[in-house]
């Protein structure tokens, strides 16, 4: 029996003209982006190394956001440690030089608005040149305000942004890998905690558990913050771990700002058979920056140039 194959990646239909935005050359030099060497992904990287990478991801988030003059600060800064563990601790298999390598593990950012952290992570891993981070949200940039697969940015597996949808897509990928193609790929997804109010999340959870997708690991960025306030004031979510346990997930609750705990959690997830895993990673919104830490008002705004300067000082 034949296989009907199509070229799926990269898609490049989203460009509105031939010219891409030009990154600010002064900033490229100032940030040392012209001489940047990507970090390696390895299980041998020490926790200290991953902490340093997380710090660099955070710096890049601040730099991109202040240049964009809009975008989401709090979630991306809070979750940088999760991304450092996932992309640089040997958890995910990928090849930045061959970004659409068929055997790569998949990562879906269900909370699409948190894309500054994903873009910064991908640039630090060498998926695309770092100066491009400075084109975030600009006309014809591959770094859209919410991830757009149509821009062909290496490492972006799916368009996301309408909350609750990315998890179902990730479950579909995990179903494809485990039940159709029967390969050894793993699929990861990250959701916000406010996002868990979306009904499709729980439908996806039912499906992942029903099909025993033990190749699927979701991470909840549990920072207790959403646009309108604290999650427990907007719409109570606790006990979130018990909810996923009741859906027959293997649940791991950990400090999402602690590299060592995150690495242990991902390792544990890999060992689980017959059930998907949900890592409830307790983080602080805006972690690492004193004036942003744990303040929901930083959900959806960028720093001013003065605040960015202060943040970069704190992130040294």
């Amino acid at each position: 029996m034949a296989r009907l194959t199509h070229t799926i990646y990269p898609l490049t239909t989203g460009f509105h003209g031939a010219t891409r935005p030009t990154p600010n050359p002064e900033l490229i030099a100032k940030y040392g982006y012209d001489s940047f060497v990507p970090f390696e992904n390895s299980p041998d990287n020490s926790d200290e190394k991953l902490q340093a990478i997380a710090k660099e991801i955070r710096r890049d988030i601040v730099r991109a956001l202040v240049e964009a003059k809009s975008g989401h600060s709090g979630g991306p800064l809070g979750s940088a440690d999760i991304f450092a563990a996932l992309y640089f601790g040997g958890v995910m298999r990928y090849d930045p030089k061959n970004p659409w390598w068929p055997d790569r593990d998949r990562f879906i950012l269900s909370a699409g608005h948190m894309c500054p952290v994903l873009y910064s992570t991908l640039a630090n891993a060498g998926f695309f040149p770092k100066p491009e981070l400075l084109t975030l949200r600009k006309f014809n940039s591959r770094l859209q305000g919410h991830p757009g697969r149509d821009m062909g940015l290496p490492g972006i597996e799916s368009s996301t942004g309408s909350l609750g949808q990315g998890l179902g897509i990730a479950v579909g990928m995990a179903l494809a890998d485990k039940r159709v193609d029967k390969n050894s790929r793993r699929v990861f997804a990250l959701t916000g905690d406010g996002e868990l109010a979306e009904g499709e999340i729980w439908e996806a959870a039912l499906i992942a558990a029903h099909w025993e997708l033990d190749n699927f690991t979701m991470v909840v960025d549990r920072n207790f913050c959403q646009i309108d306030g604290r999650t427990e004031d907007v719409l109570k979510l606790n006990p979130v771990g018990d909810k996923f346990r009741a859906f027959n997930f293997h649940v791991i609750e950990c400090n999402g700002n602690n590299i060592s705990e995150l690495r242990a959690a991902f390792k544990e997830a890999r060992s689980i058979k017959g059930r998907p895993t949900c890592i409830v990673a307790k983080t602080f919104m805006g972690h690492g920056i004193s004036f942003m830490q744990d303040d929901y008002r930083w959900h959806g705004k960028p720093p001013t140039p003065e605040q960015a300067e202060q943040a970069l000082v704190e992130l040294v």
Partner: protein
Amino acid sequence: MADTSVLKDNLTNLAAGPKTNGPMPRFEAHTKKATRFGFGEALVVLGERYENVVVLGGDITGSVMTSYFKDKFPDRFFSMGITEATATLVAAGLALSGNIPFFATYGAFASCRNTDMLRISLAYNDANVKIGGGHAGISVGEDGATHQALEEIAIVRVLPNMTLVVPCDYLETKKATIAIGEHYGPCYIRFGRSDVPSFTLEETPFVLGKAQTFRQGRDATVIACGPMVWEALVAAYELENEGLDVRVINMSTIKPIDREAILKAARETGAIVTAEEHQITAGLGGAVSEVLAQECPTPVEFVGVKDTFGGSGKPDELMKFFGLTSGDIKNAIRTVHSRKAQ
């Protein structure tokens, strides 16, 4: 008495053609068969051809005929329970991983409940997912308004990247399903529950994106989709008695729409009627009018559901009540023809 040889010739030329002997309106179709069976049978054909065709079930597999595939290829059939929205997302994930997933449920849910999924995860993602919207239109009958999808054309055709097909009978549904399976991109196919005339033949060509002229004519054109194509043919033949020579076009692909066929019909016949088992707002009539308004302003009359919900009843009763019969099409042709003359 109408000359049925014309229909015979036209459909034969298209390699179609029911047994048209006998006086009008008795060019009976060979059989009556619901279009959903064409969908179900085509999935099995695709499953036999391609190992990466997979099907997701939404608990009503016996209604939308995905049960055929489920029985034949249980390893490539995945039950999603009653989760229309998330089944659509899972399909997107399967497609991004190189599979060709079909997900079918009632059209009311496949379109209206699912609009945001169709928009972001299918259309914007350009995911190679095929959505089957069953139980289309009021001909669902007794189930009533909640299950009578009348909005799919409007919803799906507004989304970039989508392909939308509304086949006219059982056999065309089968061909169209195979065609969308072999075509890359997000597609939606609309089909119905009740038996409708089956009149195209194996040899009748189906080309995605191409309209077919089922009957030539000079005085007006009916552009129809779904089971209304048959009603349009009946109307056209009956109007020969009144000296009207009416063209009938089967617009089975609604997106992308065959602009050339519409403009040719408008220029050559000067009057258009659209016929669809759908709201007249933003449906096939809207799509045709958009083309005409821009390039060839022409009088148009719309046959369809007029901004109301359906209701319970027998399919025939409902089609009559909501103005979706050959008689309604005839009235519309007379009206548009008189407008043309003014």
